[in-house]
Structure formats: C-alpha cells, structure tokens
C-alpha cells in the first residue's frame, strides 16, 4: 500500500522490504557522483589488502538506501531526520535487505518515526537507522 497521508499509517506497520543495489557498478556510480570513490569502495582487491572481506558500500550510501526505502513507501513524505549507526561493514556485491517499522505517530505534527535495519543474507545487522518523516495530516 502506498502511503499518501498520515491517516494511512498505522502504528507498528512494517514497510515493504527493500533490497538495495550493492553491485560494484552501482557503488562506482555513487562514488563518481558523491566523490566517495576511494578504492576501498570500488576495488575488492584493494579492500582485502586493507583487511576487509571485500569492497565496502560507503556508509552514506547505506543511509541513502534508507531514505529511498521511505520514499518508495510514502512518495510524498518529507524526511526531517535520518540517524544512522554503522554496526558492521556492508560488502559490495553481497545481497542485503532493509526492513522498517513505524514506531511512533504524532497526529498533531504529522511526524512518523521509523526504525530501519539493514541486514546481510546471514541476517546479521550491518546498519541501524531511525528516521523522522513528515506526512500530510
């Protein structure tokens, strides 16, 4: 269900799961656009030499995934804040998915609080996020 206004949102509802594109080509595209194109993010061999399992998805890209997921759920929403904790690396070319749940609704201000979790295929948490989103009342 696409969310248009605050009345469409129920406490505890789960957002549709989002599987972000963590491919090397997409991370390279992001790196070129943002300037975050260190070989740590775009070269598996380089990242392994630094001790990582593979190239890393930049944390700011993971944060962007969270925002995109919210917009897919509620296209007209206005994101007021996204707070992100990086628990563990998100590895390029590895499948991940993001889940989200509505944890608070303020009927007066139109603000909705959402908890977001990015996990890998082993269900290990990589990124945690909390977002505050405004919807038309």
């Amino acid at each position, binding site marked *: 269900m696409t969310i248009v206004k605050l009345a469409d949102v129920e406490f505890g509802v789960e957002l549709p799961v989002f599987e972000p594109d963590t491919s090397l080509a997409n991370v390279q595209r*992001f790196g070129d656009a943002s300037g975050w194109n260190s070989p740590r993010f775009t070269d598996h061999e380089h990242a392994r030499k630094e001790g990582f399992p593979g190239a890393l998805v930049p944390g700011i890209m993971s944060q962007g995934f969270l925002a995109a997921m919210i917009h897919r759920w509620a296209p007209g929403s206005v994101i007021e804040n996204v707070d992100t904790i990086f628990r563990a690396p998100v590895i390029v070319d590895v499948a991940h998915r993001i889940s989200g749940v509505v944890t608070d609704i303020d009927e007066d201000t139109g603000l909705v609080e959402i908890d977001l979790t990015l996990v890998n295929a082993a269900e290990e948490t990589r990124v945690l996020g909390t977002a505050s989103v405004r919807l038309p009342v």
Partner: protein
Amino acid sequence: MSAPLDVEALKEEFLFKVFDEKTFSFSGQALADYAIACGETASRYTDPADADFQAPPTIATSLQPGQRMPKGFPKVAGLGMDAGKAVSPKAPIRPDVELLGKSHMQDIYTKTGRSGRMVFFVIRMEVFDPSGTEVASADTSVVIREKPSV
C-alpha cells in the same frame, strides 16, 4: 602509553567553535546519479528536468570538511571508527548552487565498558545556501577506544 583525555577540558576549549568552512556544488546529473544509485525513483530526485528537482535528502552527509578536527585538537591514542551519521534536511538543495559548509565540534562524551573507555566526538556541519539559509545539517560521530594507560 598516554594519559586519558580530559573530556571536560576539551569541551570547554573546542565545543561550538567553527573550525572549518568549505564550499560545495553539485551538477544536476551528479545529484540524479546519487539519488538513482541509492534507489530513489521519484522524478524530483532522479530527473534534472523536473520542475522541483532537488538533491536527495541525505546528501549533506557526503560533504567532507577541509580539516577533520579543530587545529590544536590533541591526537588521541586508540582505535578510531566511524560510529554513525545523522542528517537533517531543512530546505531543498538545488543543482549548481554554491553551498557553504561550516563545521564545529557539537559534542564530546564517553562510555565506559568492560574493555575500557570509549570517547565519542560529534562533528556537525551546517550547510547554507548563498542567501544564508540553512539547508541541512549533518553530524558525523567518531568513536575512539582509548588504549589502556598501563
């Protein structure tokens, strides 16, 4: 071996003092590529020809100051890690607009566990458009696990 940081003295000396100013600008295509790579689908983020075209809301966290810490800030012995980022968009960021990022130390605090003390530094960048309107703020948290002084 190094003495533990005097957090209260650091707060007194460094909190809320702007230590870096840097300008930034994004082309429409760069903003669209940033948004598309993140998975945005709305044309206001993905199509530079859209009448309401703007940067994706988290873009301010991608802006990096010219210097990461204030001048004179002590070198901390320990393992540093990026602990998290928070972003608060306040107004649309448009393409080809010169943005000014002003960075200051927003907070310094500690947490102590069984493995020792961890010190958190929160650097806040406030981003302004040419009219002086604040369009976003972005916090970067860095945590350092202090090496034991034994």
